[in-house]
């Protein structure tokens, strides 16, 4: 335990919720809200797990995931993607790019916690 | 006809030239002649205009003469 999670998300209330859930479980939660600079933040914080929203201002979550997978130093990082659109073609696209796990909003608190734990362990 | 009218008028208006130089024509006769020709031309022109564009022709700019240089 005591590992780092980077949460890339732009809705302040959702950030608040996830931060609460993960901190209570002993995670250090870093957050970032802007799509453009998200990948720099990844390089900078070197988290153990990334939670990534699809709809972000400046750059879409898919593009950020592509950047992560393209860079050798971050290619193996576990990434959990969240989307509110809930269309199957989004899930397919994410899988194709190489997402570790995919979750549709709204999620249950236990599910997201379990997913993060599982990703950190693998 | 419409095109001949000014030619006719021109010829009639040039008549004073024939006898004019000598000055033997009476000026009052000449005066009556000129104004008489003038009045006749006006009447002819009025009749022609009436024929070419009858009152209340709906189509403005129609070309009843069939071409008109």
């Amino acid at each position, binding site marked *: 335990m005591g590992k780092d999670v980077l949460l890339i998300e732009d809705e302040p*209330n959702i950030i608040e919720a996830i931060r609460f859930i993960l901190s209570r479980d002993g995670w250090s939660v870093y957050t970032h809200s802007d799509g453009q600079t998200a990948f720099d933040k990844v390089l900078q914080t070197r988290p153990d797990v990334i939670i990534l929203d699809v709809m972000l201002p400046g750059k879409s979550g898919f593009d950020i995931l592509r950047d992560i997978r393209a860079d050798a130093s971050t290619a193996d990082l576990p990434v959990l993607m969240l989307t509110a*659109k809930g269309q199957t073609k989004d899930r397919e696209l994410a899988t194709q790019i190489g997402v570790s796990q995919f979750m549709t909003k709204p999620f249950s608190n236990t599910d997201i916690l379990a997913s993060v734990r599982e990703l950190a362990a693998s | 006809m419409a095109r001949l009218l000014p030619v006719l008028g021109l010829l009639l208006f040039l008549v004073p030239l024939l006898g004019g130089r000598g000055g033997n024509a009476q000026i009052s006769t000449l005066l009556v002649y000129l104004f008489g020709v003038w009045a006749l031309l006006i009447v002819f022109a009025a009749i022609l205009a009436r024929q070419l564009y009858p009152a209340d022709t709906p189509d403005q700019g129609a070309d009843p003469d069939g071409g008109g240089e």
Partner: protein
Amino acid sequence: MIDFNLLVAICILYVAFLFLVAFIAERRANAGQVGWLRSPLVYTLSLSVYCTAWTFYGAVGYAARSGLEFVTIYLGPTLVLIGWWWALRKLVRIGKTQRITSIADLISSRYGKSNTLGVIVTLLAVVGTTPYIALQLQSVTLSFAVFARAGADGWPMPDLNATALWVAGGLAVFTVLFGTRNLDTNEQHHGVVTAIAVEAVVKLVALLGVGLFVVWGVAGGIDPMLSRISDSPLATAPFNGGRWVGLTFLSAAAIFTLPRMFQVLVVENADERHLATASWAFPLYLFLMSLFVVPIAVIGLSDMPAGANPDLFVLTIPLSLGKEGLATLAFLGGFSSATSMVIVASIALSTMVSNHIVMPLWLRLQGQGATVSGDVRKLVLRARRISIGAVLVLGYLYYRLTGGSAALASIGLISFAGVAQVLPALLGGLFWRGATRRGAAAGLLVGFAVWLYSLFLPSFGAGAVLSADLLANGPAGVSWLRPQALFGVTGMDPVVHAVFWSMVLNTFAFFAVSLGGFPGPMERLQGAQFVNVFEHSSAARGWAHGGAEAEDLMMMAQRILGPDEAQSLFLRAAQEQGKGGYLPETTPAFLERLERELAGSVGAATAHAMVGQIVGRSSVSVEDLMAVADETAQILETSVRLEAQSEELSRTARQLQEANEKLTELSVQKDAFLSQISHELRTPMTSIRAFSEILMDADALSGGERGKYSGIIHDEAIRLTRLLDDLLDLSVLERGQVTLDAQEGNLRELIDRALTATGATEGDDPLIIRRDRASENMQLVTDTDRLRQVFINLIANARKYCDAAQPVLRIDVRRQGDMIAVDFVDNGSGIPKKSQAIIFEKFSRLSDQSSAGGAGLGLAICREIMANLGGSISYLPGQGGAAFRVRIPLVYAKAA
């Protein structure tokens, strides 16, 4: 005795009456009640500007000096008018189809829209007309002096120069007021024309009154009159055949080429059929005007003291016989003749000067041209006003310089001969396809030079401009170059001599140079348009389908035609092409049409240059050249049909393409809509679910945390509700099931309340609002709550999306008939053209990333509300930022 003050008072009253007439006519025309203002009668009477003070006073003097010869000045116009079918009709038709604004514009337009020719003709007209204006000033001041002299107990002689100055100033004011009130696309001046028609009646009545008095009151009937004529010195007046023919020709030419005649005959013509009436009515008018000239001259010569000025017999005969009322009427007649000529001539000249000299200069100085700087209309109007003033100042100066000495008739003839130099280029342009720009310029310059040398300059007298030695022996002793005996031809009358040589050399140069070269493509096109005006009903072509940006053209057109007119022109054109919105395809046909509209305001050459600057070329396409080449009627007919078909096809294709684009766009939108609605619903639900779970299973929360989290749940629930409300609202509006609550309200208060609701009235608000509260003060009956909702939406949008460093929102209100238009214009970068068509669709948020904003339903709701209120909302391109126009009916009427 009528004293000076009374005479001045009568003058002022009369002028005030004319003002009133012009004012009422203008008002009626603006209200759309043109009716009798544009009748054949008014048209015919307006042609009477031909009869100036020269006719009114000068004809009698002319008859007293040279017998019957004066009548030639009226026989020429009579012949032209009764032969209207031959040339005048063509001139008027061309004037209408090409939107010609002056004779300079006609020549310039015919010869490939060449502005050089426009400038030459303008200069010629100014030089030729100035002495004539001086002549009018002189006649008015002389007539004042007659009354002064007649008063034996005597009011002092008025200062003639001061009188002339007052008259010139008054005329300038009148002309500026009614001649440059609007920049009409047709250049028609209802007020002025009506006033001129009234003056025409006054001068006719006055001259007939004096004539009847002389024949029956003095001579005692027709027979005694005729015998007195035969006994008079007129009977022995020398009869000069050369002058008889020459002057008839000259006066016939004047009808075509005098700038003021062109103005009333062609530019102010409302309907080609009026020409048919004028063809006999105007000769009749001239007939009546000249009927009593000889009797008045004869009685004047025998009854007036020797040495009396025969030019003023019309006034002095009734005065000397104590008929003061009649004399005053005659005075007003002369006054009318002078003023009407000056007014029309200065309008015509100012149009030429502003369109052919000021505007082109301005365009060149601007470099970049029409798209850059401010309102061109103001510039044009100002240029016209200044030109009017300048023309009158020139006339006044000429009057002072010549000292008002020369006999009236001689100035008139010199003037006629000057402007007649345009005739070869004009008639050649109307009837001969081979006439070229160079030919026209050569003819004009040669004719102008010969006229100057042989008639105009010598008219100042030996030693004034040309030395006596030069006049007698020719320059440097070359005798065949003597100004009044060119090529050794002596014994001719000076006027006839000058007219003969200037016209012969002018025509020769015109033909020789035209035959020696080929007309350019633009000249050929315009030539075909002019010569075959009755066969081609379509307008001149000339614009290749080019890269003109409709939006740039719109910006320029707004500056010249004014925003309302330009917008409606573009809207109409777009609709005819089957397109929505304000921006039509820049097809050659559209460019032609735009250019013609602009030409009505600034002249053909300038309009061509302005459009050329934006389109980026002024060449002629291959199709256009082929259109010129294929001229036989057969081919023309077929091609017209084909053109109509292909036009139809391309319109259908354009419609289809647009429909297809829209469908594709809609299908993409549909997908986006589903994603969007899913996103909009799931996002608040995510927070709600997460926090409610937190609240459920955590007992360890502090009271503060608990309160905070339940607050978030509450806010997100409200956000969800609002979204659902909007969706419901929209679907109700779309199905037209909404019940509207019409009530009376004030537009200004509505805008006030909308601004308050969006927080724009708070002091620290970054968005600056510009509005004109006075123009917003309008009552209207509508659903005020719904309308306010639209305003709030537009203001909130400007706040959210205007990307200027210092955002400014301008709110403009104006009345358009039964509708009010409210424009919301911000100073941001606006909405890209490709998106303008879809912003009113549901969920069409332009940037894909949602900021904290709404769900993209705002404008869609606005559109539905406005449709339900009987109005509309549209995007207004070309305003420099994002601009929306809301149109609301003044009174909401329930849809039937």
